[in-house]
């Protein structure tokens, strides 16, 4: 650099400096880091680079999308919506108030059945889900209303209990498990009868997360003062009751329910059928229709589904990959055509603002 050359120039004042004793020089140390000279890579977006990159993304994404879509399509899923069907058996064409009255009356008959036709062979394990709709498990009032400390079986302070409002205590005694979530436990039950195999056994074990069972729910704590356990008729009914002699960790339905859903339409695992279901078979589901979704117009469904290596049925991922991949290919093609029809050298300085005619800098200052 030319600047370095100046170090040899004489001191402008001349003389007098030799008297000053040599101090330690304050010259900054030269390192590549402090001088900001570390090797750096900044990709230059040349046409070839851009077209190539888009091409590559397209080439990678489209196959991934196809594979994902394929996996999703290999899943067999049968859904049956039953909240209206079950009601129609008893009071067809009921008004909302009638529906609510019906479901809240503990004395009304609540059993009903739906049939599900197996079109395609379902390999075991076949998962049973219930699906709720328009149910806001993600509502803040709802999400907050639990005490993890209590569920874990720890010492519950009054502030912990406060978290559970408005379902924290009855008659000044703490509810175990407290909170709106536990109180609104889903309590419809299903039994499955296959036309060919007769009644199917449903495995209710292992439907909750292992970590939840192990760490988050106490294996010794027994439910107590649970409001749903001593409902004496009327309309105060919440969700399901709990077995007062079974510790929380054993009630996997509760554990599944307490892992709140992020969206208002959600499925929760209810059990597993551990035999293959052949195509052409018909399954009759006997339902006890207890859970109140009629107040807020929610739907209830029962779902049978197999899984693939990618989980349940979900076409979104495959479509997303395919869309992005195709878009990239399209852009690559577009850029290629533009570059081919109208090429220009990289770094053409004549396009710089100050090289453009009639746009000299500082000319249009005072307008």
């Amino acid at each position, binding site marked *: *650099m*030319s*600047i*370095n050359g*100046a*170090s040899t*120039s*004489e*001191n*402008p*004042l*001349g*003389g007098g400096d030799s008297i000053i004793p040599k*101090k330690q020089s*304050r*010259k*900054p*140390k*030269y390192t590549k880091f*402090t*001088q*900001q000279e570390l090797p750096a890579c900044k990709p230059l977006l040349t046409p070839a680079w851009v077209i190539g990159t888009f091409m590559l993304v397209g080439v990678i994404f489209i196959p991934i999308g196809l594979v994902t879509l394929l996996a999703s399509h290999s899943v067999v899923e049968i859904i049956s919506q039953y909240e209206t069907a079950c009601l129609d058996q008893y009071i067809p064409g009921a008004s909302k108030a009638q529906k609510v009255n019906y479901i809240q009356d503990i004395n009304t008959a609540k059993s009903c059945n739906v049939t599900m036709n197996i079109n395609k062979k379902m390999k075991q394990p076949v998962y049973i889900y219930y699906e709720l709709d328009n*149910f*806001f*498990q*993600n*509502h*803040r*009032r*709802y*999400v907050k209303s639990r005490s*993890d400390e209590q569920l874990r079986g720890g010492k519950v302070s009054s502030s912990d209990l406060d978290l559970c*409002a*408005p*379902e924290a205590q009855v008659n000044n005694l703490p509810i175990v498990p407290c909170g*709106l979530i536990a*109180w*609104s436990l889903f309590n419809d039950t299903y039994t499955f009868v296959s036309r060919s195999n007769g009644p199917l056994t449903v495995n209710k074990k292992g439907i909750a997360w292992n*970590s939840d069972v192990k*760490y*988050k729910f106490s294996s010794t704590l027994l439910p107590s003062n649970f409001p749903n356990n001593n409902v004496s008729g009327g309309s105060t009914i*919440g*969700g399901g009751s709990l077995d007062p002699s079974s510790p929380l960790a054993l009630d996997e339905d509760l554990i599944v329910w307490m*892992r*709140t*859903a*992020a*969206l*208002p339409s959600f499925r929760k695992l209810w059990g597993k059928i551990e035999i293959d279901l052949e195509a052409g078979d018909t399954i009759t589901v006997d339902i006890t229709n207890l859970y*109140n979704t009629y*107040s*807020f*117009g929610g739907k209830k469904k029962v779902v049978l589904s197999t899984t693939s290596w990618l989980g349940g049925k979900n076409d979104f991922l495959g479509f997303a990959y395919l869309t992005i991949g195709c878009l990239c290919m399209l852009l690559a093609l577009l850029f290629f055509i533009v570059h081919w029809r109208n090429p220009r050298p990289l770094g053409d300085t004549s396009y710089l603002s*100050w090289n453009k005619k009639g746009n*000299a*800098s*500082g*000319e249009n*200052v*005072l307008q």
Partner: protein
Amino acid sequence: MVRRTRFWKGKKWQFAVKQQQQNDDGDDVVVSTDDSHFVFCNRPALNAQFRYVTNMTSTRKYSWWSFLPRSLFEQYRRAAYWYFTAMAALSLAPFSPYNRFSVWLPLAFVLILGILRELWEDLRRYRGDNLVNSRPVLVHDGEGHLLEKQWKHLCVGDIVKVMDGDYFPADLLLLSSTGPEGICYVETMNLDGETNLKVRQALQVTWAIGSKDEGLLRKFEANVKCEDPNASLYTFAGLLEFPDGEAYPIGPSQLLLRDSSLQNTGSVIGVVIYTGHDTKVMQNSSPVPSKRSRLDRSLDRVIWVMFAVLLTLSSTTGIVLGLWIKNEGTSVWYLQPRLSDPYFNPAQAVIAGIISSLNGLVLYGYLIPISLYVSLEVVRVLQAALMMQDVQMYDPATDKPCRVKSAGLNEELGQVDTILSDKTGTLTCNQMDFFRCSIGGVSYGKGTTEVEASAARLSLPLGGASLFPDAINQESQLYKTSKILDSATTGNMTNGVESADHNLFKEKGFNFYDARLLGGNWATEENSQSIELFFRILALCHTAIPDGNVDNPSSMRYRAESPDEAALVVAAKQFGFYFYKRTPTTLYMRETLGPKAQPVDCKYQLLNVLEFSSARKRMSVIVRFPDGKLLLLCKGADSVVLQLLDPNNKGFSTQTNTHLKQYGEVGLRTLLIAYKELKEEEYIIWQAKFEEARSTMGRERDIRTEEAAEEIERGLTVVGGTGVEDKLQAGVPESVDRLAKAGIKIWVLTGDKMETAINIGYACSLLRQGMDKLIVSMEGVEARNVEEKAQRDGLSRNEISKELQSLVRRKLEDALQLVQMHNVKPQEVSNSERHQLSFSSSLHSALSHSFSRTGSLSESQSQNSIMSRTLSSSLQMSSIQNRHKKSSSGQTFTQKIKNQESPEAKTLVNMDYELEYALIIDGQSLAYILGDNGLQELFLQVCLKCASVLCCRVSPRQKAQVTRLVKKGLGQHRLCLAIGDGANDVGMIQAANVGVGITGVEGAQAAMAADYAIAQFRFLERLLLVHGRWCYRRISLMILYFFYKVCLLGFVSFYSNTFAHFSGQPLYLDCSKLSRSRGDMQGL
């Protein structure tokens, strides 16, 4: 005593002063009506009634008790901080979705960091102040003894004694000096940046005080009545009244200003007039401004937008939730609407909605990132560290790396549009070197000037010369000869300066090499007579004061009015004419005539000094030589002295003039040296006239003295001319050039003379040959006409200033018209006949030509020759007649360049096409401009169209004012940077968007006040174009990324809430929850 008792009553006293003034009306002394500052000299206790401020000065931004609130206030100037505080307050509410600590902690961190930094800076200022305030000074204790006191304990009315080299502790009225006739010399570098010595003279009545007789000191008793404290450094008016009723007018010549220092004088005695913050220098200082980066401010604006977005989001949240609760709250049984609380109560949905929208503010608070502010601080500190570590901005000569004072302005460096630069010590080293001379029609001296060297480096032909074939030949010949001579003597073809470096005779002020003259060799030259006379004139015609050991010529320093004057005396010394002592009437010289001659002591009787003034542009002395001859020796600007030559005896004037033009073109300051032998009778008659003129009182005096001087300075004979190089700092022309190429405009604001400024302008390629110079000056004929007219018509001061103001306005309007006219394409100019300009030779100075315009402009204007238009010397030589011709020759010139096809040539073509203008304006005109809003506007319009602007003779305050004006004029999107090295630049540095200080040799005030301190001007290039750009880009990128990030976080949070009826459930866990319940994902 009667009077004193009258003065005891505070209010009444002011009235009394006014009355008295009316009585004084007949007197010539002009005392403005607000002269209410009153001092009992030598009786400080009596002054206590007026409650003058103490001599304690403080530059601190805060006082101890106001520190916390004010520094907090400083922090809260960021709009975002108010928001953060409000959010933190909200987080205390029970409905807050986040833990309070996760909101309070970062806020407290940022605030405390900011306050600590302010504290640290203020402590540093406090320490600096303390150092100044506790300097010792000798003070009269009232009993005839002088005791040492600290500066801060000084009171108005105290009598102090200041020793040689010391700074004046306050504004003093000079009473007496150990120098002859009450004279003392002061250096005012801290005030105006000038290193020359200025003379102050005490009133004759007070000369005796402070002499051996201490009783006089004790008995001294007088009152001073003068102006109220004000900021004007160059004016002062008052009356010194003795108890016996005698009153003497006092003026700036008796005032010793704080922060200037006593030089070349044993000691002085003075009375403290203004103390502390009343002193002129403190009045000139503006409070330390808190600079904020424009980026910070635009960030604030973005924050407001984000805040609006946030409000929309959170009110949407509130409204939607409220409606939902109202309409469907009762049906969602799983939320237990029957056991309601304010957050969920279908009966009172409005309350729930309001709470929910407050909650939304916190919930989507991501949109306004506090972490951005923390990150910004950290990034800036790191950037500052990198700048300070830059080896390429380290100056080995002064052992100083770049220092960053306000890292907050890093990115501003990359957006600078205009640089306001000081000249002395910033662009130049403030060192003048005798470089070339022309004696008896022969040019001596070789080597390459900075201008030549930089022109060569930039491979630009010396502009004007190339336009005209005659000039180009002469110039290149001169250039070639010097090169050939260099190569002949040293065998070094590449750089002429290097051969001069080996010069044995080189010293400060002397960078001349020519074997024909040095070492006494001149005696063998054929025109040795002229040479001898030439050197004698150099050694005699000056006002410099020798300082050093008489018997050791090499250690002798000369304190001169300007460094170029000193350079000439040094040159004479080197040639064997050693000037070593000055008394008011005699000049002592030791002459060595010839290579082997013995030194001889000579005495020259100094009869008169006809002083230099910027109007006269020359100085003369009348000296009686040892052989009895009576000579008038004169040196001055060639343009002026040429008019004074004896028309019958032109001598070498033509050759000398040609040489001087050439010197001027290569960036040297030129002076013509002439003399005249006086007849005894002639002198005696003149002397009487001159004495009479000098004894006139008041404003008349200067005019009459000038007239008298002019009378004798006639019929001169040319001996030769000198070329002195104003040494530029290393790399300045290249830096200026590159900054200009980067589109940065450079203004020079200097306290120097106009000619000097113009020279330097050329030297550092701010002014280029072929640029049109628009000069607005109060020293021209027009201004003088106005003043004369005013005197004739007896106009009051106000009316005069109005006249002058309208003069300035006319000039500016003309300039604007000219600039706008030629900002169009050159072709259009040459095509439109009515824009033709005709030049007429100037009346008042050969340097600046007046021109009159025909066509669209009115007759009266052309008669007044309003616009001064300076032409480059080469333009003068060729008899170019009009604009048309000039631009056409410009085109042929560009044609030539195009054939060469070098990139530099191309840029030159571009520059030439733009037909650039340079505005040159002096401080007096500026004063009128700054005093009027309309004029300010006009001035800005002109300036912003000009490629370069030079402001000469500006005071520190004006520098700051101009800077503020520029800052205003540039508007929001373009920034100005001020760079300077002296205390006189502090105001400017503080006023600019970015202030850069040169940690040069001239004290550290500028560097202290600056935001960035660099050791050399050329580092500015790297600071702006490399670091500035990097910082700007990186910080901008970071901020953009931050907003991308916060939008992502905020909007996703909002979007997720649309799925939960805007219940306000946070999507992300805050840190406290993360640590408390590991694995608690809650499914969200």
